[in-house]
């Protein structure tokens, strides 16, 4: 349940949205309950769906400090150029986003965008998606498997190998994950918690070996957003005892919860899912961004069933201003949780700076970074 799902919709390009009526309707397949996911095929792309993303967040343990990192590949089928035969027609567009959270510093990030066959590529057989030198792919290693992440940017670069320590976590009903009360508002959602990280990180001209824990999400959908939603809070935590916790809520304009969900797999592998009425998000402390003026509840209490946890951000300022595909400001960063469960993971909060822009009036496309 990520911010980028918004971007995956036709809102992708402001001008696209402004005249969506002029375009032929594209028949996106629906997300249906009971669909059986098959791996590694379903690690690969599902280009017929409107949106899809592969998302890795994690914490690196370096001798000096904890570092948060995040790499996302986001595929969109905006419904443009559907009738062209050209191999470089802009039918499938890939955005990539990488960020690094360093304590005592601000968040660093870098992004790329390209259309399929012209810089961007993805496989429909297995997880393998990339733009230029950036790449995320799964590969077999003997009897085992691993995920590899590669990215370079002027500010930081990494080359990481993620080794699974646990089985995949199919969210919702065997991977069918509702996003609202309305029928059809859902995604296919696969998580892979507790990935062991090893590799190299280059930052500030220094190359260092790193290790840590990461969380992998793969989600694809056609319709995610319910009426009235302005943003959401999302959390994916690798628990210290080996368990995994995912929770999210959709908010409306006044901050009330429209829909919420939590899934907790304990150290023993037992999965418990929590219905919307048994999940509650309560802001404890706000942090105001000097840049955007937005106030984010960086400390939130989340209760589900009998459990209750609080978030503690690695640093308060993990606000991010992405320029692509549309300029948008949100908070996404490494947090610890305390309470009845403890662990580390990522918290994402959107829609606090302004209502997420769904349409614009400029055809000027954002410049690549």
């Amino acid at each position: 349940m990520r911010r980028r799902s918004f971007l995956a919709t036709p809102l992708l390009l402001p001008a696209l949205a402004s005249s969506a009526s002029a375009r032929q309707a594209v028949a996106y397949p629906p997300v249906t309950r009971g669909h059986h996911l098959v791996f590694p095929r379903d690690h690969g792309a599902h280009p017929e769906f409107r949106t899809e993303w592969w998302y890795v967040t994690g914490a690196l343990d370096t001798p000096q400090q904890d570092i948060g990192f995040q790499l996302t590949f986001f595929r969109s089928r905006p419904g443009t150029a559907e009738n062209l035969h050209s191999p470089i027609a802009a039918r499938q567009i890939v955005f990539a986003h990488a960020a690094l959270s360093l304590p005592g510093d601000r968040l660093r990030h870098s992004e790329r965008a390209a259309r399929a066959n012209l810089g961007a590529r993805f496989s429909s057989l297995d997880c393998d998606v990339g733009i230029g030198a950036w790449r995320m792919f799964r590969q077999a290693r003997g009897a085992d498997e691993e995920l590899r992440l590669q990215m370079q940017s002027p500010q930081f670069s990494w080359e990481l190998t993620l080794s699974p320590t646990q089985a995949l976590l199919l969210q919702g009903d065997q991977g069918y994950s509702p996003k609202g009360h309305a029928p059809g508002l859902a995604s296919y959602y696969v998580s892979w918690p507790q990935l062991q990280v090893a590799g190299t990180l280059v930052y500030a001209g220094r190359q260092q070996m790193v290790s840590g824990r990461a969380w992998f999400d793969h989600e694809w959908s056609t319709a995610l957003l319910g009426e009235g939603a302005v943003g959401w809070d999302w959390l994916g935590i690798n628990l210290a005892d080996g368990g995994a916790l995912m929770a999210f809520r959709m908010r409306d304009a006044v901050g009330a919860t429209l829909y919420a969900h939590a899934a907790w797999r304990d150290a023993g592998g037992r999965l418990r899912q929590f219905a919307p009425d048994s999940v509650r998000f309560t802001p404890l402390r706000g942090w105001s961004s000097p840049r955007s003026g937005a106030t984010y509840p960086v400390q939130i209490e989340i209760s589900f069933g009998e459990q209750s946890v609080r978030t503690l951000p690695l640093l308060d300022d993990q606000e991010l201003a992405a320029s692509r595909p549309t300029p948008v400001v949100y908070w996404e960063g490494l947090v610890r949780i305390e309470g009845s469960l403890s662990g580390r993971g990522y918290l994402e909060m959107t829609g606090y700076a302004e209502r997420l822009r769904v349409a614009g009036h400029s055809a000027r496309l954002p410049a690549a970074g």
Partner: protein
Amino acid sequence: MNTLAWWLIRAQFRSCRVATLLSMLAIALGVALGYAIHLINDAALTDFSRAMKTVQGEPDAVIAARDSAGSVALSSLEEIARDPAVLVVAAVIETRVRIGHWPAPVRLIGLDVFTAGVVMPGLLPRQAEPAPTGSILEGGVYASPALLARLGLPVNAALTLTRGDQQWSTSIAGDLPAAGPDELLLVADIAWVQEHFGPADAVSEARLRLAPDADPASWRARLAQRLPAGLLLRVADDDSARAANLSRAYRVNLNVLALVALLTGAFLVFATQLTAVAQRSTQFALLGVLGLTPARRLLQVLLEALAIGLPGALLGLGLGYGLAFAFTRLLGGDLGGGYFPGSAPIIVPQATSALGFLFLGCIASLAGALYPAWLNRRQALVQALNSGFAQMPRAGRNARRQLLLPIGLALTAGALLQLPPLFELPLAGYAAIALVLVIGISAAPLLTQQLFGWVATRSLLPAPQQIALQNVAQAPLMAQVAASGLIVSFALTASMVIMVSSFRVAVDRWLDHVLPAPLYLRSKATPLPQDLLAALARTDTPFAHVERTAHALLTLDPQRPGVGLLVRELERSNPGERLPFSGPVIAPPPEMAVVWISEAMHEIYRLSPGQTIHLPLLGREVEVFVGGVWRDYARQFGAVAISRDDYRRLGGDFRPTDLALWPLPGQEAAAAEWLRPYTARHGLELAESAEIRQLSLSIFDKSFAVTHALEAAAMLIGVFGLAVTLAASVWLRARELATLGALGFDRRMLSRSVMLEGALIAAVGLLIGSICGTAIGAVLTHVVNPQAFHWHMPLDIPWLALLAGVASTLATAIFASHYAARQATRLPVAQVLASTQ
């Protein structure tokens, strides 16, 4: 002391107003021309690179096909994009299309908005509100403001783009706010351009932004090894080098013309200052006796030269700016040379270059005054006080020793002419031209002395004529001074006339050879439509014969403009029927493709007949045999011709762009009528060979128009110089003339004597000038033109024009010496005789 210097300068200026002013003007002209050419070219280059920046942006590197018909495969692009040193790969498809029935094709650039912003921000489109299409990804086109204005179409208007047989019906979805005010451009999404106009599975170019920490040099070296043979890696430096290479030779030649004006100016300063030194020898001698040191006397002459040079150069700067401004408005940034089409650049003067030209003007003036200054320093005071100026340095030399200098110089000039071009410019040739001028001037006294001395001793002419003869023969230095300006200006004028005439005759003959058909048809930069080609293949056409040609461009060296590729319907065994070969044609090995290269290509790339070379053709390196070298005045940067059959054998797709048509006898009108629907529908250009010929020659004449203005200016300066020097010599010889008057010479006799003197000196000047001019003309045609432009041509001397020039200059010179003669007849005889006692 300063007061004295200033006073002397003022006195000198007052006494020789015309001469001083003339010298000043000559310097001003030289500076003005040089500065104007510099300003214009600077502005044109800036304009050119600015236009290039809008369209190409400022990428760190560009990867493109060497063959203009080629492309960069998507697979190559993907491989380049994966390189960690590459931040962004902005792919572009560029082509030319016709908009509706608009005759001129317009550049259509297909870009990818996800990457274009980084490299080519100047091409980013702006969506109109409301827009006919959702976004650029959905197939609208975006026009530059200049194009919208030119088309007179509103945003949202539907339009049809055509390229050959391919068509795209779309609409204007917005504009290009960052495009330059003169840019005529269309921008669309790359996929839509590819869909309608190709190339399939490829793009025209990839423009790269490298990672900031990447080492560009080592990255380039690494990539160059992996790059397919048909592709080319270009960096920003290459683009500016190519732009400079485009106009370099042309510009240098114009600058040499400016130097000629400056040189003429220097000679005028020489003449003025020498006469001034002679006139004031008594004055200087007196000052010398009163304590003016020889060094100060030398300095004074130089100071006076500077007083001529500095204002002259300043005037020249102003004049140059005005000229540059006027010329760019009238002719564009290439002075009609055709290198930077369609630009009216803005002139921006810069302090350093202005100072440079100011300095050059002063140096020319000082150089002219060096010898007079040295003479002034060497004057023997007592003798000068008694009897005026003495030509002492010349005394005592015998004719044989005097010959040594010209002979030595001639040998040096001959040696210089054997040298190859330096920095691709005929610098040695220019040096030889300068030497020829020096030889001419140094030969002048020798010739006058020998020729007129001999005539004077052997003939019994009436007294006035005899005196004139003796005068010229015995005052060779004075004659040299008077003649030098004429020698220089006439030699340069004659040489230009000879060169231009030789060139024109050669172009004329060449046009005969390259335009054998009565009718020519061409599409502008796009392949000819299939329906026309199919119709021509039928038997019921009014044509006896049709020959097809396909034009393309090959880039052999990224720092040089591309080489023209001509795929023609030629016989492998008999290419000489269509190509004007300048050397032997070698039969190729039967299994190998053969190409025939132009003289420019032969010289620029050092390729010779009989060689086997690798040509970047059809996306790969192709081994071809060089069968011969042909003459080409159309493509200065080289051309290569290949037969259609060979091209097809190599796997090329022959898509004609030009047709040569031979109508059936008596059906000329029907032929034009037959073609009319096609030319109207597809915007093709139809021309008769006579029209093309006339147009080519008129372009030729236009591009040499500037030289005629220079020739006129040089001649004017030369003739005025003669008049001024004569007048000065009359003044010098006041005593002698007064004596003659006292002896009974009437005014007419005196006047005749002086005019005859002028005529004799002019004749010597013109004789030497013609000889030097012919020599320089030969150097220009045989050395300078081939080395600078790779244009070879036989020498063709326009005797009639030259003789007419000699006659008219002589007449003008005699007329001008009338002015001096009048001064002679107005001398107050008694007073002069009394004062010199």
